[in-house]
């Protein structure tokens, strides 16, 4: 792979909780890298910690331990160590697009001001220049420049999401982290936004970490895929390798569970839906986190935690891969 722009090593994040144990282990040691022009999809279900991971990478919640290294124009930025003004300035190179198009825009701020915020915060443009840049960004994401004077409640969900993307692009970042950026959109709008992202990847050589639970989006957009379960990565592979030869039992279960929009194929599948539920993030099991639901689990799976190893070009964390 070409030199990675974003390197995350052994990231851990936990936060206090109300339950008996008092701690929720959201992210339990994640290693992942994204190169320029690459889309890495991070797949997982609710409670696996993927949103916490996104926030930890963006330093919106400071990780407990671990490295987050970003390649800026002047060298490597250790985001996990930066604070105050230095962290703020480093944010220029790594931006985020958030899930809820209704909540990610300040309802009292005009679209133009919202998109201009990074320009102002990083001192990149002001006054007329800023307005021109905002207009260009809005056009880039397929919204008319006239929308700059409107307010979020006047826009549809798809339009708001595009505004979020425009805002993320304003500072010309190297990395964009997208947290479920299309999940809240209607099917027909989803394709439009995904096409926009495809164009942007091609034109801007952006590194994108796309967090999603939707495997169809993965199929369309991803170069590599990482699968997350209970705070850790269980498999990392190229998209084709993951979809054709999944090596981790959870990945296989996930792929099995996605209904195919073809009733003939769907009926022909032998489907045994994965039973049970993930263990609580407060009481993380000793061995493999998936052991309680794994159809092929053995004795040592419950007691020994597996480590990530390379199997046939993919990285898998499983004793039996």
């Amino acid at each position, binding site marked *: 792979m070409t030199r990675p722009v974003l390197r995350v090593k052994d990231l851990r994040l936990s936060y206090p909780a109300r339950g008996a144990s008092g701690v929720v282990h959201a992210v339990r040691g994640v290693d992942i890298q994204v190169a320029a022009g690459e889309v890495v999809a991070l797949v997982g279900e609710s409670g696996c910690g993927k949103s916490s991971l996104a926030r930890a990478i963006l330093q919106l919640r400071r990780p407990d331990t671990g490295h987050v290294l970003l390649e800026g124009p002047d060298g490597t930025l250790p985001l996990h160590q930066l604070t105050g003004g230095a962290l703020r300035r480093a944010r220029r190179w790594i*931006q985020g697009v958030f899930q809820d198009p209704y909540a990610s825009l300040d309802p009292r701020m005009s679209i133009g001001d919202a998109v201009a915020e990074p320009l102002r*915060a990083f001192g990149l443009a002001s006054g007329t220049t800023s307005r021109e840049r905002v207009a260009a960004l809005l056009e880039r994401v397929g919204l008319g420049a006239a929308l700059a004077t409107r307010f979020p409640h006047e826009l549809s969900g798809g339009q708001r999401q595009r505004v979020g993307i425009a805002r993320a692009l304003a500072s010309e970042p190297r990395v964009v982290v997208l947290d479920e950026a299309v999940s809240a959109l209607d099917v027909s709008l989803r394709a439009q936004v995904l096409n926009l992202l495809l164009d942007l990847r091609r034109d801007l050589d952006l590194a994108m970490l796309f967090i999603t639970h939707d495997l169809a989006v993965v199929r369309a957009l991803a170069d590599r895929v990482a699968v997350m379960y209970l705070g850790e990565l269980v498999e990392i592979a190229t998209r084709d390798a993951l979809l054709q030869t999944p090596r981790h039992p959870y990945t296989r279960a996930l792929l099995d569970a996605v209904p195919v929009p073809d009733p003939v194929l769907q009926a022909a599948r032998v489907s045994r839906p994965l039973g049970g539920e993930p263990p609580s993030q407060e009481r993380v099991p000793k061995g493999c986190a998936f052991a309680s639901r794994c159809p092929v689990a053995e004795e040592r799976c419950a007691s020994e935690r597996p480590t990530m190893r390379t199997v046939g070009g993919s990285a898998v964390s499983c004793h039996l891969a």
Partner: protein
Amino acid sequence: MSRREMKTSSRAPHRSIAARFLTVVGLLTVLVPGLPLAAPSEVRLEEKLASPSLETLWRDGFEPERIRDPGPVSRLLIETRTAVFGDRQLGPLLGTDALGRCLLSRLAWGARLSLAVGLVASAISLIIGVAWGAVAGYAGGRVDDIMMRAVDVLYALPLMFIVIFVVALLRGFRNEHPELEANQIIVLFAVIGATSWLTMARIVRGQVLSLRGTEFMDAARASGSTDLSILRRHVLPNVTPVVLVTLTLTIPRVMLFEAFLSFLGLGVEAPDVSWGVLARQGFDALTAVHVNAWLILFPGLAFATTLLAMNALGDRLRDALDPRLRGGRQ
């Protein structure tokens, strides 16, 4: 409804009866020096305790010098008034008090002071309360704890007694050092303002806390804005609706507090006049033999209608501002 709709709808707060009423009251209050009213301190002992009547609508005898310490704007208004009306003035349409002073005029001039105290003291409490609440809510953690504990302690203190104590202290101090011409009204503003910000602080803090969890706040941080910039550009505008509504409730409370202090003799001093002073004097004029009801009735009505209008406006504001955030196109 969209902003455009809100401006034209009949439910818009600025078109409500309350808003129009308050606008009229506000305008009149500002223009009082230019109105053909008797001087509020003009004593006519031969007319004392006259009940309201329309007998004498107009008469002569206005003397501009009787208006105490007019500011430059007031002076201009008075000059305009004398140019237009000469020395004619409206008669005692609402009756007179124990010194024969015109109640209508005193009510009008008293409005200036009462509303001024209401607005200025509320402004002080607004500034302190919003700043305190916003910082506490945004900072969170230890800072929030300390700041809100302070508020809790202040809440627990009997503020009424403290204000009375402070005012009495300042009076005594001034009496001993007459050379210190401290403007006692300004002291009144400050004292009332300094004790009314607690509720605002709590409300603002609550609002900021709920804002902190929203995605757009995370997005603002990710966009590289400094904390100060976020407070200014995101927190304050989103806190404004709640603040405005609370303000329309704070002003009446503050005005009543001033009235209470003046009633006790600790607020506005003679010869200045406020609605609270009038209430006191009206109360004093109540006797078993002659009720002299108008002296307390009209100040009471003035208070009641103004405060009612403000509360009603506050309600309308709340309705208009909240659904707007929830409504709009899906």
